[in-house]
């Protein structure tokens, strides 16, 4: 556990970066510091490993005052990941990862061997061990950065906007894998971001910082979205807040309709088109959805090709939330969201009308302001692989 008590950082020119921060960061969980730029979130993170020394107050890790430990020694025991990875360009990927173990006196040979294992852990081929950072893409560099921070197996990891510099698709992948990795490792992680979506997605707890270095709210993500502590948090969480809060409403009770499917390459179906029959769901040989066929644009009997399909659209995977269901329905040209099983095989569709009805039937007073006992009963959500975080239906008053 990391604990801040009355920590402040005031620079000689009088600027207050962090004001009287008291906060307990639970062990084995992801705690996200979020806020606009200049709110002191990065300063707070960097005070944990003494990259910045507090002006006043005490920071302890598992009860030990960090000032009692020699700074380099302290840092070797804390994983550190930064925005642009900060890899050493003159060292190979393996040697980059081996940095801290070598500093701790592990032989270079042994450290490199372990580095290769870590590459697999972060989803990179071991053949990359001998490459140099300049030979990697941004996302790959960031993975190496994570592997490097894990190399000495530190109990605590500090991550300063690690996924901000990569494109949205790669970011999403990295976030998913990060959650999977954390599920295996159970590190105490402090994660800084300015992106509230990332905070909600990754955090077990979120600390919202306001300008001037004040801690505005420290709570579980659902509470930050539903019950912002003040106008600042409300404004910061702001746009799409209602939509985001649907992430926490399970949709397991939602009816899944049977949906006739046609295979890729098969002849376009006969029968009445138009209306709700205008769109036909096309699946591949394994039954995985490929896209929607506009039957008005193809005469019956013609083989279906990729060029006839409306591609894309999100899918509702098992354990989906109302948010995912809504997005699946909205992103489908037919207005019917495709639900898939664990293997990605289409099992049917969810209609927009059903999703809207479910949202309407949801006790939205609970969404907007959960009752005290409800908030008390909240437990950290299970990290669903690749899916939105969901809580069991019923826990939230979701209709069955």
């Amino acid at each position: 556990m990391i604990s801040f008590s009355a920590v402040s950082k005031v620079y000689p020119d009088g600027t207050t970066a962090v004001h009287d921060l008291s906060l307990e960061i639970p062990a084995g969980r992801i705690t996200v510091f979020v806020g606009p730029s200049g709110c002191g979130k990065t300063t707070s993170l960097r005070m944990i490993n003494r990259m910045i020394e507090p002006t006043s107050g005490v920071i302890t890790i598992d009860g030990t005052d960090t000032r009692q430990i020699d700074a380099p020694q302290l840092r070797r025991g804390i994983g550190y990941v930064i925005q642009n990875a900060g890899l050493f360009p003159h060292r190979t990927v393996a040697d980059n990862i081996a940095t801290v173990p070598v500093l701790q006196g592990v032989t270079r040979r042994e450290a490199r061997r372990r580095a290769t294992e870590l590459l697999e852990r972060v989803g990179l081929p071991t053949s990359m061990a001998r490459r140099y950072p300049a030979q990697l893409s941004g996302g790959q560099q960031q993975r190496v950065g994570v592997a490097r921070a894990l190399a000495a197996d530190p109990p605590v990891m500090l991550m300063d906007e690690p996924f901000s510099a990569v494109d949205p698709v790669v970011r999403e992948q990295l976030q998913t894998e990060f959650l999977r990795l954390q599920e295996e490792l159970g590190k105490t992680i402090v994660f800084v971001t300015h992106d509230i979506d990332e905070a909600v997605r990754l955090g077990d707890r979120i600390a919202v910082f306001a300008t001037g270095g004040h801690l505005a709210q420290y709570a579980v993500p659902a509470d930050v979205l539903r019950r912002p502590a003040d106008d600042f948090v409300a404004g910061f969480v702001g746009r799409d807040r209602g939509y985001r809060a649907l992430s926490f409403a399970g949709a397991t009770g939602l009816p899944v309709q049977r949906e006739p499917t046609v295979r890729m390459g098969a002849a376009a179906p006969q029968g009445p088109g138009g209306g709700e029959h205008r769109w036909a769901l096309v699946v591949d040989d394994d039954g995985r959805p490929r896209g929607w066929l506009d039957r008005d644009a193809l005469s019956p009997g013609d083989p279906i090709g990729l060029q006839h399909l409306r591609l894309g659209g999100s899918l509702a995977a098992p354990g989906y939330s109302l948010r995912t269901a809504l997005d699946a329905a909205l992103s489908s040209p037919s207005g019917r969201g495709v639900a898939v099983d664990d293997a990605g095989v289409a099992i049917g569709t969810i209609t927009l009308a059903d999703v809207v009805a479910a949202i309407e039937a949801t006790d939205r007073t609970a969404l907007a302001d959960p009752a005290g006992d409800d908030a008390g009963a909240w437990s950290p959500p299970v990290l669903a692989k690749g899916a939105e975080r969901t809580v069991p239906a019923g826990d939230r008053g979701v209709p069955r």
Partner: protein
Amino acid sequence: MTAAWDFLTTAANWSGTDGIWTRFTEHLFYTLLSVVIAALVALPLGAVIGHTGRGVAAIAGVANALRALPTLGLLTVLTLWSFGLLTGQLARLGPSIVVLVVLAVPPILSNTYAGIAAVDPAARDAARGMGMTGSQVLLRVELPVAMPLVLSGVRSAYLQVVATATIAAVVGLGGFGRYVVDGLAQQLYGKMVAGALLVALMAVIGDRLIALVGRFLVSPGLSGRRVREKAQEAEAGFAAVPPT
């Protein structure tokens, strides 16, 4: 030109105390001694300034001031002065070496500083954040990353010193400068041109040699195009994974 060719192809000119080999050894000695002393002064100084960020304005001023000093004038003044303090060869050698060191310090100093200042702040931050001490950051990250620039500083220092070491002959020392100075005095222009050619040759060969050393000192991760091309290949290969 033919006179120069005749001078170089006459076997007698290659041996003896005024022979090409002797003059080459002398010239090499002045050059190496000066560059090594300059490196010993400028490398640590540039490294510390680059690492701490302190004294940047001072070195810019000093480096420019040193460059502006008229070499021949400085040599004359120092030699006159040193004859009062030292005796024999040392009275001539000392001032010559000092002049050459003064010439060699600025490029090494400013390149070392610039190389370290140009290290990616993220890499430096990561190095510190992972628990490297200040000197470990300097020796294991900053200097290796700055190495290409440091070496190019050493190369330009070497080139300037090789060319300028001819003036040692003005105060009565050896080196290829002897041929230039004596050739002029004896009106043997072939000898003069031969001296100049030998200096040029030595500059080019030395420059190549330093470049060769650089191949071993500079990490492949830092040197240029080959790596960048591979990076593009790697990226293209990775994009082949279908997006889900």
